[in-house]
């Protein structure tokens, strides 16, 4: 019996894992020469989860530092209060009612149409609103940033080879504040020359929770926030995944026993 199980698993499993053999070099190939150190993130691994206080600090870093140039295209304010989000409150299962989220939304200015005149007007945000665009279009973004368009940050982590490790390495990868014709050296950036000025300095912001805002701390926190933003359903996916695995394992075992019963009287 054991032999047959092993055989079946081997047949399907070995063949499947050969996928990795091809997919891994494909991923690594995009890298180039820059060095990216692996970080021990809490969200790594099959049971990893996001660190809520770190995400909350990370949101503050985004709001006070990154948001002057970078948008969060795929996020709405309400997402901050979603289950698994940085400001989730079990008392407010509907994030639109969450007072923290409402207050954050109010911090932002969004564009609306005046219902009387039809003219565009500025208004404070409500949880249902999307995070506003920072620049009206890509040309304007490039023009105000020395020709480089600051990328959207909401899915920056899945959109970069190396993911969270890369973003953290980039934020901490500057070796000086000196620029050469508006270009800075950054060991993590492919090619080493980046147009973004070093964004983080020690004590640049004052954390609401009293954590000391070293530049490394801020880089770590904002990466945590962006990791959530890029894959907000990761925690539920892993939980459901575990249950699915458990179920499939039991089901496979039962099917194997059924199969053995059916074949009991047949020599094969």
């Amino acid at each position, binding site marked *: 019996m054991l032999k047959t199980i092993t055989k079946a*698993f081997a047949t399907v499993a070995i063949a499947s894992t050969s996928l990795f053999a*091809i997919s891994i070099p494909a991923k690594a190939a995009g890298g180039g020469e820059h060095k990216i150190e692996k970080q021990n993130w809490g969200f790594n691994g099959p049971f990893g989860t996001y660190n809520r206080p770190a995400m909350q600090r990370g949101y503050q870093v985004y709001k006070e530092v990154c948001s002057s140039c970078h948008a969060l295209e795929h996020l709405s304010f309400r997402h901050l209060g979603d289950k698994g989000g940085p400001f989730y409150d079990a008392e407010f299962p509907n994030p639109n009612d969450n007072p923290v989220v409402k207050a954050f939304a109010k911090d932002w200015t969004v564009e609306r149409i005046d219902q009387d005149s039809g003219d565009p007007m500025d208004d404070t945000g409500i949880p249902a609103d999307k995070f506003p665009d920072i620049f009206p279009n890509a040309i304007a973004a490039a023009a105000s940033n020395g020709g480089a368009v600051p990328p959207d940050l909401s899915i920056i982590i899945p959109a970069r080879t190396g993911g969270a490790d890369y973003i953290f390495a980039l934020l901490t990868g500057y070796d000086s504040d000196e620029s050469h014709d508006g270009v800075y050296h950054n060991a993590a950036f492919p090619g080493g020359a980046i147009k973004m000025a070093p964004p983080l300095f020690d004590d640049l912001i004052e954390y609401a929770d009293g954590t000391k805002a070293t530049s490394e701390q801020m880089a770590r926190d904002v990466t945590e926030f962006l990791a959530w933003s890029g894959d907000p359903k990761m925690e539920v996916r892993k939980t459901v995944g575990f249950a699915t695995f458990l179920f499939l394992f039991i089901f496979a075992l039962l099917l194997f026993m059924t199969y053995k019963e059916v074949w009991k009287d047949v020599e094969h």
Partner: protein
Amino acid sequence: MSGHSTYEPKYAAERWLDKRLPIVRFGVDFMGFPSPRNLNYWYAFGGILTLCLMAQIITGIILAMHYTPDVDLAFDSVQRIRRDVPFGWLLQPMHAVGASMFFLAVYIHMFRGMFYGSYKNPRELLWIIGCLIYLVMMATGFLGYTLPWGQMSFWGATVITGFFGAIPVVGESLQQWLLGGYSIGNPTLQRFFSLHYLLPFIICALVGLHVWAVHHVGQNNPIGIEPKSKSDTLPFHPFYTMKDAFAIAVFLLIFALFVFYLPDALGHADNYQRANPMVTPPHIVPEWYFLPFYAILRAVPDKLMGIMLMFGAIAVLFVLPWLDTAKVRSMRFRPITRWFFIIFLVMGFILGWCGANSPDDIAIPIGEHGMSFKWVSRIATLYYFAYFFPILPIMGWIEKTKPLPDSITKAVLSGDA
């Protein structure tokens, strides 16, 4: 569909129905189809593929309810599915990973057929229909990969549709007709979406023919000799339904591993960036299942030749039944050809590896320099075609095969099956 029916309606209602529409009889005979008793787990991939096709169609129809085929909205609509649509975070990766799983299963299914000689008389047409299914699958996979409208979607589509531009004389107008413009744009996305929705149903029709054919000629088996007596076969249900069901459950475990824990492992980071017609990603590669063909394409310096070789690599599969001249089906009894087949498999993997890397990078360091991926892929391409011609025809004539067992039952009882 062959042999006589074993169905005997018991009740009046059953007899009434059977006289007017013998659908129950069809189902009973279909499931009771006599199958060789020595099929191993490699034969479960037919069932696994049926499941893959159904899963892709179901998740695909659902995604189409939420997806918007418009260059300005497509990328955002996929993100919306993953963030806001109930269970979208599950269904979208299921469809994307499902495509990879489908190809994985189809490759195993094809290699199984090649190893056991399942394409040989009288199963040539069965094999050709299978090749057609594979071809339509490739088209469907390619069209589907365009839909999320990320950087890889856009540039992959640009490169592949560029093949048609290489055709002499009519190439350029053909390409424009295909794209609905001078380059990939909104008309392209909309027709790709429409065709991506259509082709799976064509696959379904072809699968119907494929299954019909296999029921007509009977399944091949690991020792490649036809069943001779009743003791050589077992009814498909419950014997193989249960064996297949177990294999499917194991396959689903691997499927689930990717969907829940590695949803992006088979994709590319670049496809999380919105398509940008002004910037090509530094390293564009197709999905893993096209990599071997991509390597063949790049092995040749000439554009048209490269494309012809690449399509030739698929076309040659269609004539395989006539290139293999051996009388014996299964590689189990072909001691030398078996090794040529294993090398063929390895070369397939090497081509995939070459396809994933830049052609001018060094694959095998020798001394100061070494051999570039381009040259490795040239050698592998050469072997790929050499396997079909002249290796298979020549081996068919000269190889001394091992003696075949008298019957499936004898082989089973002596432990050789």
